[in-house]
C-alpha cells in the first residue's frame, strides 16, 4: 500500500515534469502555426533559415547565461560586451590587414582576440563577484556601462567598420552554408550540444546546479564555489565572443548601438526555457527553445501589418507572458500545489 502511494506520487511528478519540459516546445509550435496562418511564406525554407540564423546570436549567448543563472548569478553585461569585443576585433583586423593581408590569417587573429577578450571579460565579472564579493547584478551593471562606453569611445561616437578587403574572406562565416545549413546555425548547434553536455553530463554542471541550489551545501561538499562561479562567467564570456565572431561578418561593423538589450533577451530566453532565475535548476534545451521563441515572435510581427508597428512591443510582451504561462503546464492543477 505504501509502495503504491509512493509510485503513484512518483508518476504524477514525472508527468508534470514532462509537460514542464515540453512547455517551451508547445509554445514554439503554436507560434509557428500562427505564423503560417498569417502568411504561408513563414514556413518557406528561406524564412526558416533566416529564423535559425538570427536565433544563433541570442541563442549562443543564452547558453552561457544558462550556466551563470543556474549557478545563482546574473550577467547584465553581455550585450555591451559583445559590442566592445566586436569593436576591438574590427580595430585589430583593420590594422592587421596591412601586415597580414586580408586573408584567413587576419580573420583568425580577429577571432582569437575575440575569444581572449570574451574569456577575460567573463573572468573579470567572475572575480569581482566572487573575490570582490560584490553582487553580480551590480558588477555586471557596472561592466555593462563600461563596455558600452568603451565601444563608443573606440568608435569616436560613430561606427567602427571592417575593412572591405577583409569582408570577402570573413563573409562566409555568416553568409556561408554547410550541408544546407548556414554556418551560424552550425555554431549554435555545436555550442548548444556542448553546453548541454557540460551542464548535464559533467561534474562541473552538477556543481553549477548545486551552487545555485544552496551555496552552503556546495561549499560543504568541498566544491570550490568561487572557482566554479567564476568559470560560469568565463563560459558566458566565451559564448559572447563566439556570438560576436559570427555577428561581425553580418554587418561588418560595431557601434554603441550594437547588442543593446541583448542581455535582457538572453535572460528572457533562459527563463522562458524553464531555468529558474534564482538558480539551482538549468535547462539548456529550454534555453534554445526560448531563443527560438523570441526570434520567432519578432519574425511573425514582420509578417503582418495587422498590428500597428507601435504595438509590436505589446504583442511581444503578451506573447512572452503567455508562452511562460503555457509552459508552467499546471493549469487547473493549482489544488495539488501545496505539496
Amino acid at each position, binding site marked *: 500500500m505504501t509502495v503504491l502511494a509512493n509510485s503513484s506520487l512518483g508518476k504524477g511528478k514525472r508527468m508534470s515534469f514532462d509537460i514542464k519540459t515540453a512547455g517551451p516546445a508547445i509554445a514554439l509550435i503554436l507560434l509557428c502555426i500562427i505564423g503560417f496562418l498569417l*502568411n504561408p*511564406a*513563414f514556413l*518557406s525554407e*528561406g*524564412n526558416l533559415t*533566416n529564423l535559425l540564423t*538570427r536565433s544563433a*546570436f541570442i541563442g549562443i549567448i543564452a547558453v552561457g547565461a544558462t550556466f551563470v543563472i543556474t549557478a545563482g548569478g546574473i550577467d547584465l553585461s553581455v550585450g555591451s560586451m559583445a559590442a566592445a569585443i566586436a569593436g576591438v576585433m574590427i580595430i585589430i583586423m583593420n590594422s592587421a590587414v596591412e601586415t597580414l593581408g586580408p586573408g584567413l590569417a587576419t580573420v583568425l587573429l580577429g577571432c582569437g582576440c575575440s575569444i581572449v577578450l570574451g574569456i577575460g571579460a567573463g573572468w573579470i565579472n567572475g572575480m569581482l563577484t566572487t573575490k570582490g564579493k560584490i553582487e553580480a547584478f551590480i558588477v555586471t551593471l557596472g561592466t555593462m556601462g563600461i563596455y558600452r562606453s568603451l565601444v*563608443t569611445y573606440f568608435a*569616436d*561616437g*560613430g*561606427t*567602427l*567598420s571592417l575593412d*572591405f578587403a577583409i*569582408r570577402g574572406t570573413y*563573409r562566409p562565416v555568416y553568409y556561408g552554408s554547410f550541408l544546407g545549413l548556414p554556418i551560424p546555425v552550425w555554431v549554435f548547434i555545436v555550442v548548444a550540444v556542448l553546453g548541454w553536455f557540460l551542464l548535464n553530463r559533467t561534474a562541473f554542471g552538477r556543481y553549477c546546479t548545486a551552487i545555485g541550489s544552496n551555496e552552503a551545501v556546495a561549499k560543504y561538499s568541498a566544491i570550490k564555489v568561487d572557482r566554479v562561479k567564476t568559470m560560469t562567467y568565463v563560459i558566458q564570456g566565451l559564448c559572447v565572443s563566439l556570438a560576436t565572431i559570427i*555577428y561581425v561578418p*553580418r*554587418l*561588418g*561593423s560595431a*557601434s*554603441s*548601438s*550594437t547588442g*543593446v*538589450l541583448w542581455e535582457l533577451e538572453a535572460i528572457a530566453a533562459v527563463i522562458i526555457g524553464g531555468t529558474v532565475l534564482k538558480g539551482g535548476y538549468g535547462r539548456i534545451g529550454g534555453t534554445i527553445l526560448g531563443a527560438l521563441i523570441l526570434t520567432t515572435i*519578432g*519574425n511573425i510581427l*514582420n*509578417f503582418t*501589418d495587422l498590428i500597428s*508597428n*507601435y504595438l*509590436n512591443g505589446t504583442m511581444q510582451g503578451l506573447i512572452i507572458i503567455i508562452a511562460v504561462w503555457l509552459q508552467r503546464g499546471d493549469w487547473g492543477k493549482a489544488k495539488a500545489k501545496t505539496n
Partner: protein
Amino acid sequence: AENIKIGVSYPTPTHAWAAGMNWHAEQAEKRLEALYPDVDLILVNSPDPSAQASALEDLVSVHKIDALVVLPFESEPLTDPVLNVKNSGARITVVDRGLSQPGIEDIYVAGNNPEMGRVSAVYMKTRLESGDNIVILRGIPTLIDNERFDAFMAEMEGSGVNVLDHKHANWNRDDGFEVMQDFLSRFPDIDAVWAQDDDIAIGVVAALKQAGRDGDGMFVVGGAGMKETIKSIMDGETLVPVDVLYPPSMIATAMDVTVASFKSNGPVAGRYILGATLITPENAASFYFPDSPF
C-alpha cells in the same frame, strides 16, 4: 496588372523627429496606394541595426519586394544587408544616411547633416561676438551627431566665440534639461546654447526658465523643424528665434520618387539632397504641418 511591392524600412520612432518621419511615411503610403491600386507599400520599423537587417531579409524572403526604400539605422552595418536586397533584384532607394559603399542605391534622398551644423553656426556668428560663451548639447553619440558637431565647430573656428563645453543630451528632453541645469550651475556666463535638436531645446528652455536665466539676449538654437518650435518662431518667440530644418518628410519624398520610378516614363534615378534651411519668422509658415506629430 501585377502588383508592385515596395518595402519601406526605417528605425522605430523613439523620438519626435522619427515619429514625424513615420507620420509622413504613413501619409505617403495611404496617398500612393490610393493613387495606384497596383502598388503595395509595406512599412516596417526596427528597433536596432540587426533587427533592421532581419527585417530586410524578411521583406525579401516573405514579401518578395520589387523595390526597397530604406532609412538605415546606421550606414556601416546595413550596407551588406541592403546589398543583399539589391542582389535579389529589387531597386534600392536610400534615405538620409548613405551606405558606406557607393553605387548600391538607385536613388538617394537625404537631408544634410554637416550643413545643418554649418547653418546653425553661421546664425550663431551673426548674433555673437568674439569673447561670447556658448555651450553645446549634442545628440546620441553617432555619426550624424559627429557630422553636425564637426561642421558646427569648423564654421565657428576663428570667430572668437568660446565653446565652454559640450555634452551628450541624446536628443532627449529630460537629458537636455538635466545637462543644461548642470551647465548653468557650472558656468555663470552663457550667451547662447546650441541644442542641435528641438527636443533637447525644449529641455534647455525649461532649465533656463527655472534658473531665471532666460533673459538678456540669451538664445537657443535647436534643429529639425518640430511643429511647436516652428509655431513659436511664427509667434515671434525670442528665446528660440530660429530653427534649422532637417525635414522628416524626406521619407515621403523618397517613396514618391521610388513609385515614380515604376510609373513615370522619364528617368528618376539620382540624388536628391534636401537643404538645411534656416527657418525664421519670415519663412516659418511654409514649414508648419499642424497634423504631424512632429
